């Protein structure tokens, strides 16, 4: 056979082989399944109202923001947040602290990720760090997702994931999640991860480069993105939080960055996250600020949000008994007239965890200088003010 013949038929044979491989890969992908059942918290008991509040330790950072937390062994809580001289500064690190419910104290904070460590372990230049998000994968490992930026502002963000086998004492090197074909920039995280029934992890993310919209990433056991679904599109919805109610049904809420009226956006799925309804405005206000939500053990949906259309001075809790259709303001955590507040009246970026004992924990940015932790039971939530 001539050289031209080898080239012609050899290239065809090679193409046939690799396309056979592509078809096998794509035809044998597992069929997506619905959400995993939520971990059962102890149902609410008719106990006396319980409420407590602490400021998390902060010995060095002038500015802190974006707290997240996960329950770990012994009913303890491990929190993460980012702090530094200012938001976006090169000295911003991601800190952690451990809460013991027995004595009600937080351990001194320590950095789990710095910009220098991130760029060394990710093997690429990193300019700044941003939002962390904690959760667990199906194997029970503690996962920490965090935002990093190499070029530009937050629109240049990408998400990284590191895992811990020992409840957050030590961590794997981070790996980069690839979620956009455009230089893999403009993907951020704020909402809690969730579980699918097949063991995959779901991660609600958002983009804010040319558009502001949400997506739900599906990660395999190695933390690689293996599928994604669009939650919204356009230029006005971001920071999705997803609350699965059953294997098929979930409700999601999103921060609104569009024209007034400023309202929290809501989305729904009835097929395990394969398809989502177009976002609709709820009756709850949203001053272009992050929200948090969780499904309580009694089936109600709890929402932490800034109850104002223009500022972040009021942080409240709302309850819904019909999966988000109607809401009742249950409590105001911050912003009561006359109550002592932070030097800067900004209470934002809430995070909700209900622990295995049924106690509800809310962490949030308190005046940009501290992270505040409030914890209570459902009896406190019900108690008339």
């Amino acid at each position, binding site marked *: 056979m001539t050289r031209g013949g080898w080239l012609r038929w050899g290239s065809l044979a090679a*193409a046939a082989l690799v396309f056979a491989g592509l078809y096998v890969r794509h035809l044998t992908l597992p069929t997506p399944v619905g959400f995993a059942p939520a971990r059962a918290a102890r149902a609410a008991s008719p106990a006396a109202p319980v409420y407590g509040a602490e400021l998390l330790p902060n010995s060095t950072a002038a500015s802190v923001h974006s707290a997240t937390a996960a329950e770990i062994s012994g009913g303890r809580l491990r929190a993460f947040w980012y702090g530094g001289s200012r938001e976006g500064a090169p000295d911003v690190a991601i800190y952690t602290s451990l809460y013991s419910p027995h004595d009600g104290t937080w351990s001194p904070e320590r950095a789990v990720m710095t910009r220098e460590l991130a760029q060394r372990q990710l093997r690429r230049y990193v300019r700044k760090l941003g939002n962390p998000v904690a959760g667990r994968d199906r194997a029970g490992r503690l996962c920490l997702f965090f935002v990093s930026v190499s*070029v530009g502002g937050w629109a240049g963000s990408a998400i990284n994931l590191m895992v811990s086998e020992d409840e957050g004492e030590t961590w794997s090197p981070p790996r980069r999640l690839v979620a956009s074909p455009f230089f893999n920039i403009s993907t951020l995280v704020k909402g809690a991860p969730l579980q699918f029934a097949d063991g995959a992890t779901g991660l609600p993310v958002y983009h804010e480069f040319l558009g502001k919209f949400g997506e739900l990433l599906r990660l395999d056991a190695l933390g690689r993105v293996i599928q994604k679904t669009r939650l919204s599109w356009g230029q006005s919805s971001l920071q999705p939080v997803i609350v699965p109610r059953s294997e098929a049904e979930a409700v999601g809420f999103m921060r609104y960055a569009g024209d007034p009226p400023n309202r929290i956006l809501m989305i729904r799925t009835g097929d395990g996250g394969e398809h989502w309804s177009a976002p609709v405005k709820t009756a709850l206000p949203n001053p272009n600020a992050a929200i948090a939500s969780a499904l309580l053990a009694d089936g109600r949906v709890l929402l932490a949000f800034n109850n104002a259309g223009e500022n972040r001075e009021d942080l409240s809790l709302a309850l819904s008994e019909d999966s988000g259709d109607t809401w009742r303001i249950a409590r105001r955590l911050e912003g009561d007239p006359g109550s002592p507040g932070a030097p800067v009246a900004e209470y934002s970026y809430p995070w909700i965890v209900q622990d295995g004992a049924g106690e509800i924990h809310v962490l949030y940015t308190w005046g940009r200088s501290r992270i505040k932790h409030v914890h209570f039971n459902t009896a406190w939530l019900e108690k008339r003010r």
Partner: protein
Amino acid sequence: MSASDAFGLFGCGLLGLAAVATLIPLRRLPHRVRYALMLAAALAVFVPFGDLPAAAYLRGVTGDVSVTTLVLAGAACIARITGGTPIGPRDLRALFWLLAPAALFLYPFALGWTQFDPYALGYGSVDFVTALLLVTLAAWRAKLYAVVFIVIAAALAYLAGAYESRNLWDYLIDPLVSVYALVRLLSGLRHRLSGEVTQPAG
């Protein structure tokens, strides 16, 4: 260092080398000097100074480059050093005509224009693989073997999980090669139009 980090750094480093080889007028220099200069450039790109090599700074900006960019960068380096043309102009033109519409299809939608997200097809769509197969067969029939080779190399890298991404699009195309293809096509079009205008009549 993981294999995906090594492959990612290699791709960005090769892109940096291609840029150096294009900026320096290597063809005017003796062969030995060309090799020495490229070796020095390779050391500058891949050897760490401080925490990171220069390739890692480029990687921070561009992310991992596609296999198409990698092949074109490698071809550019070879062309500048040896004076040969590893990829002929006919193959290049065809490649650009494939990349430009693919980019115009992919990026606006992937960046949130509508609810439709073509990027999601790259995680596991038989329709997407079939479309790529048809394009590859058409290229093979037209004897555009460089195009066929690039698709095969990209698919192999994807099947081997060479990059951090598990999305086939990321192995086929990236914004850099898309812009390059669009610029080359527009430039060719401009030349053709100006040639037609200045062409003497009759």
